[in-house]
């Protein structure tokens, strides 16, 4: 049994496996299938200061080896989370991480301040990269200035671990990562979904209500691996890798490319017990290759 513990800034994880926001609900939805206490951390649904209805149906289109979504951050707002959901999930013996979105710098900062007061919230993952919201969201994540602005504001309002989630829909993801690091982020996670689109040729109509949406699943994995590899070389803060991880081998590949921890997203839809299987599989890999600690494989790619 290898040592699976790892760190994201000041945050200690019992293992490097987290859940990707928007694919794991509030964790509770998966309680029948896995022991949530086993997770390194659970990153919950994208939350905004005010409630959002999200986009109209249809919000999902299947693609070869993946899917597109344009859910658009449907959630009941941060106060509802604090009053109604937080009390139910705060005692899970794992790290509760809230994925936070916004359309103005002020909204981000206000919501972060509210979350700062909750002992059970161990970190924020700042979503500056959602492709499904008209105003803000990705706008912040696609320029170094925008990214710096929102990260600096949240850094002032929030004292615990601050993870910033990056969009792959940019010219240089390393430049954004550097800007975010300079503005006080403790870690970066990547990638969010890739902007894509699907068409019904017979009806001459788009398959998504918003025409475009975010691509996820195994089809994005090569892009995600490349992004992690580039960003790891650009920053000193820990990197969290995700995008198309379906099993432990995929997870190990991300760690070899430089990820200190990983997130499981779309795979949860195919097999709701993927997270636990990946934890077991990483351990098996480490034992088989005689590694004592999971930290030994981070960035261990031989090129």
């Amino acid at each position: 049994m290898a040592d699976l513990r790892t760190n994201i800034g000041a945050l200690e994880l019992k293992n490097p496996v987290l859940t990707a926001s928007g694919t794991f609900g509030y964790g509770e939805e998966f309680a029948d299938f896995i022991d949530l206490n086993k997770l390194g951390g659970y990153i919950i649904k994208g939350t905004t200061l005010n409630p959002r209805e999200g986009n109209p149906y249809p919000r999902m289109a299947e693609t070869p080896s993946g899917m597109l979504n344009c859910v658009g951050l449907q959630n009941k707002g941060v106060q509802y989370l604090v009053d109604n959901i937080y009390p139910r999930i705060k005692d899970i013996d794992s790290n509760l991480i809230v994925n936070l979105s916004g359309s103005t710098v002020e909204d981000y900062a206000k919501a972060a301040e509210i979350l700062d007061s909750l002992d059970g919230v161990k970190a924020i993952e700042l979503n500056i990269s959602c492709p499904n919201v008209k105003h803000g969201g990705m706008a912040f994540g696609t320029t170094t200035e925008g990214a710096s602005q929102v990260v600096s504001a949240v850094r002032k309002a929030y004292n615990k671990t601050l993870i910033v989630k990056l969009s792959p829909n940019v010219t240089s993801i390393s430049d954004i990562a550097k800007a975010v690091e300079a503005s006080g982020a403790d870690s970066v996670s990547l990638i969010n979904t890739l902007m894509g689109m699907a068409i019904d040729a017979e009806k001459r109509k788009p398959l998504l209500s918003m025409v475009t949406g975010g691509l996820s699943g195994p089809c994005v994995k090569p892009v995600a691996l490349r992004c992690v590899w580039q960003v790891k070389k650009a920053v000193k803060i820990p990197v969290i890798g995700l995008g198309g991880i379906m099993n432990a081998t995929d997870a190990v590949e991300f760690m070899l490319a430089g990820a200190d921890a990983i997130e499981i997203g779309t795979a949860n839809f195919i097999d709701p017990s993927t997270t636990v299987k990946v934890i077991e599989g990483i351990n098996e890999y480490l034992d088989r290759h005689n590694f004592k600690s999971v930290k030994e494989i981070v960035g261990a790619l031989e090129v």
Partner: protein
Amino acid sequence: MKKQLKGLTVKSIEWLSEVHILLKLHDEANSMPEVVAGQFVEVKVENSQKTFLRRPISINFVDYKENDLWLLVAVVGDGTKHISELKVGEKVNVMMPLGNGFPISNSTEECLLVGGGVGIAPLLYLGKVLKDKGHKVTYLLGSRNAKGVMMMDEFKKYGDVLLTTEDGSLGEKGFVTNHSIWNNKKFSKIYVCGPTPMMKAVAKVATEKNTECYVSLENKMACGLGACLCCVTEDKNGHNRCVCTEGPVFNINELPWQI
């Protein structure tokens, strides 16, 4: 009710029409969980280049004596085609039971169960449960032609069966809403599953007759667990409701249908 992942074995697979199969899945290890009629399962499709997500399929019947789960599947695309190519003895990974199911009254009622196309699927088990609880069951099943009429012997076990076909080849000619039963009998509850235009047409009649009416929606789903919010339907108040957990069954009063 705990949701579970089950590895089931194909016990039989039978073509009921050119496009419909009846799949009987057997659990060798554990007993079938308790289910509410109208709940569904998510079937994992193996070895397909195109189909990535699980496919939601209604629970057609649970045979607790045999420990079997029945699924009635219309082959419409790649995923259902792969399901139809399963062989006896092969394993199928199924997540179940999902969704809310049809509400059932405690006092004895006259129930009309209206199905169209493959939408008849969940009504078989619903009829059984209703009958077991002492309700009076009438099925009104519609299809395009006589070839689409399936599982009659099964349906007849639980209630009277009335049929409509669009070409008049079996039962009364026309749509389910054209059937003479609507003028001849009063029901206290109507349950509907089928294509959306059919459900809307029945909902209109139910509203005119002031009868409580439930419909089962078939929105596209990704997780089936309430985690992704891909499957939502807009309700009467403009809120997006999760079809896989708050549904698939809704009272027509909750929906914004113009009726």
